[in-house]
């Protein structure tokens, strides 16, 4: 019973904070609600016995990526709600239509998918040791490609941020 109640509470908080990110008019408030959403998801990852990914979620997303977001909001002075006007236009009903279409399809598909029982979680599936071992043996080439991608990303953002010399 306890596990279901915990999941229910976490799911409600996650959905409400995601709604706050989308429907808040203030970008700073959106960013802080996004941090709350990331923490909630990290807790859900812990209940899925994915400890390592949960810790990484807090460190990488709630730590690094959100600091980057808040830094750019501060740098560009976008904190006030009317920095970018938010008009009502044709996009809005269209977005809701498409969104609810996707939602109905996804929910119908995931409810049709019946998994009879919950398998016993293997105790060390989510530990850093097992994931690291798989990452450096079976997934070594994708890991190297990820390193190349991150290097290209760093070089690209430095080139973009540099002022022209002339």
């Amino acid at each position, binding site marked *: 019973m306890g596990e*279901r109640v915990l999941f229910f509470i976490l799911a409600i908080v996650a*959905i409400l904070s*995601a709604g706050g990110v989308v429907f808040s008019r203030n970008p700073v408030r959106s960013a802080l609600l996004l941090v709350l959403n990331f923490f909630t998801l990290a807790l859900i990852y812990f209940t899925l016995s994915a400890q390592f990914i949960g810790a990484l979620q807090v460190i990488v997303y709630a730590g690094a990526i959100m600091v980057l*977001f808040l830094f*750019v909001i501060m740098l560009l002075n976008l904190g006030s709600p009317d920095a970018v006007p938010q*008009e009502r236009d044709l996009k809005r009903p269209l977005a809701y239509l498409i969104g609810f279409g*996707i939602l109905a399809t996804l929910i119908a598909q995931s409810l049709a998918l019946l998994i009879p029982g919950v398998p016993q*979680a293997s105790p060390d599936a989510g530990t850093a040791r097992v994931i690291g071992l798989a990452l450096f043996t079976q997934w070594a080439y994708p890991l190297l490609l990820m390193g190349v991608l991150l290097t290209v*990303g760093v070089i690209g953002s430095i080139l*973009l941020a540099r002022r022209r010399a002339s």
Partner: protein
Amino acid sequence: MDAVPLNAYLVLSAFLFVMGAIGVVIKRNPIVMFMCIELMLNAVNLSFLAFARYQTDLLAQVSGHVFVLFVFGVAAAEVAVGLGIITVMFRLRESIDVDEVTLLRG
């Protein structure tokens, strides 16, 4: 009978994904659009981890976790480049309304 069924995780993931998708379309502030993209990536991560939890094979479970790690890496690179582009856009135009940006038009 205690545990949460897989469908519950998938429905939560669907809700988060659709919220992100609606936000990307209706928002005009590019930073909030990026936040909504992060929401969508996190929804997909949640369903990866839920599917991994409901595998019986250890190798399949670890593969799900490794894939989530790769999504983390892609998200980090995307945010770095995207926020760089927003900064340059603001420097050139003093306005970052996405409906008025035509810099990439050929």
